[in-house]
């Protein structure tokens, strides 16, 4: 039924997606949710058309299972799926070393315009592993951690991280209380998208989260 034939795919002929990207797109591995995951992470937003959620099972500091769900283009689905394959069986420390370029390479390349999908997948992983360290008590929630989470929070109007430009004003952390301050008008369209993304990103952590926008 499908015209795609992996053996006869002409890499140069069409749209710039490699054979491997198309294979992962058409037949993605590790799709779905996980019961009792050790940690989850969400990167991107539906507003920018690019979002992934990762579910990791970690036992004795080794990733024993990984699953994903996605909302996005072919590159988004393929990067998330191949990432789950790449990290299965790796220790947390090994997985931390994975950069977005490794994902691109694993897929046999990506069109330049789609690199951000691999960046998003790498940020999602980084976030998940940092959260794991917090859950394990090996890492405390500080501004560096908050920024790591915010790196994967995307402005739907620009497709860039909320950390780009002067949208991020700073954060205050006292015990469990985490207050993130953004230079974004309270009742703007983006405010809602940012709030939803940030709250979801902190999911699973024992924090009392507050997000402060500026008055419109």
């Amino acid at each position, binding site marked *: *039924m*499908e*015209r*795609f034939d992996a053996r006869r795919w002409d890499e140069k002929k069409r*749209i710039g*997606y490699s054979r491997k990207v*198309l294979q992962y*797109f*058409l037949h*993605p591995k590790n*799709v779905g*949710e996980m019961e009792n995951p050790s940690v989850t992470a*969400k990167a991107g937003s*539906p*507003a*920018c*058309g*690019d*979002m*992934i*959620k990762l579910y990791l099972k970690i036992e004795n500091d080794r990733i024993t299972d990984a699953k994903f*769900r*996605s*909302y*996005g*283009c*072919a*590159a*988004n*689905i393929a990067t998330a799926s191949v990432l789950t394959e790449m990290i299965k069986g790796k220790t947390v420390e090994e997985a931390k070393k994975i950069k977005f370029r490794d994902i691109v390479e694993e897929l046999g390349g990506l069109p330049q*315009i789609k690199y951000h999908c691999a960046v998003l997948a790498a940020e999602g992983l980084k976030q998940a592993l940092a959260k794991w360290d917090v859950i394990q008590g090996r890492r405390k929630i500080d501004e560096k951690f908050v920024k790591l989470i915010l790196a994967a929070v995307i402005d*739907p109007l620009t*497709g860039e991280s909320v950390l780009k430009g002067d949208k991020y004003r700073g954060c205050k952390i006292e015990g469990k209380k985490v207050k993130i301050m953004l230079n974004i008008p309270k009742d703007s369209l983006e405010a809602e*998208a940012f709030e939803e993304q940030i709250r979801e990103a902190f999911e699973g952590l024992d924090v009392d989260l507050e997000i402060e926008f500026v008055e419109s």
Partner: protein
Amino acid sequence: MVIYLDNANTTKPDPEVIKVMLEYLQEKYGIPGGEFGHIFDEEAREAVEEARERIAKRINASPDEIIFVSDETEADNLAIKGIAWSKEKGKVLTSKIERKAILNTVRRLKDWGFDTYEVSVDREGFINLEDLQSNLEDAILFATHLGNFEIGTIQDIKAIYEIVHDKDALLYLDANHAFGKVKIDVKKLDVDLMSITSHLIHGPKGIAALYIRDGIKLKPLFDGDVREKGIRPGMINVPAIAGFGKAVELINYDDSKRMARLRDKLIDLLLSIPDTKLNGPRGDKRLPDNVNVSFAYVEGESILLHCDLRGLVFSTGSACYSQELLPSHVIRAIGGSFEDAHGSVRLSLSKWTTEDEIVKAYEIIRNVVEKLREISIYGGKK
């Protein structure tokens, strides 16, 4: 066979069009000359003037009012910049849901010191007449469309020209997507300038026509010879013009009726997929070839690629598919969310589209959307 439902992007040339063009590519390869031209000049001139007459007649214009240009983008630029330069100052208005060529031409005029304004539209894509009326102070031109390229909305031109002409501004109409499907009479529409293109009516690419009402002055974009009355100097694309003329001759409004019936069938079938919504109006106010729906929880480029690999092609308003990575400005302007834009697909029919193709297209899309919703974060529900 691939099911081609991207006819609002471009159409397949009619074999009769190609036959006419071949004659002017192979044998009659001259270009129109002056009054005392030789036989090659003369054959080319006859072909061009015959096409001009045919096109003029089809829109109830005079042949003197038709200028050939290379495509609709050039027509937009010539009409909008040409009028602005000729008036030297004033305000140029357009709407938020025009094609990029119109929006960016108007934005360029803003850089050059003209006042500009983008009129809002309602949820079905109809021009907000109050917004138009209250922003017409010092206006010289309102540039808009007859049928929307993306969501198919057919504007109420009578209401628009009454408001625009009441303020002594001119009206430029992009009729490219409506031409050939909707009967057009420039006298009845009372329009001052209008563009129609060949490649959307089974004619060749690289040719379009700009109607300029008798007596309207505009400055040319290019300087050159006196071809096309000096308004559009330069090479005359004779084979394309001959093909365009043939394509206009082949227009048959019975095709539109059939297309409209198939359009409605496809809309109903697609809306039977859960969490799907129609973009643009229904019925007579919609271009007969246009279907545009948004699927929740999934993204357009993914849908497109899956369908392409299964032998069905169309287009999407998703940011992932655009070169600028921006979601459809049309879906956003009618009040759609970012997700509505990313999940939107446009399927456009032609006179050759069959009922069988419509049903097959629906089956493929339904299957693909279901498959992608299984991968989706929302798992098909929110």
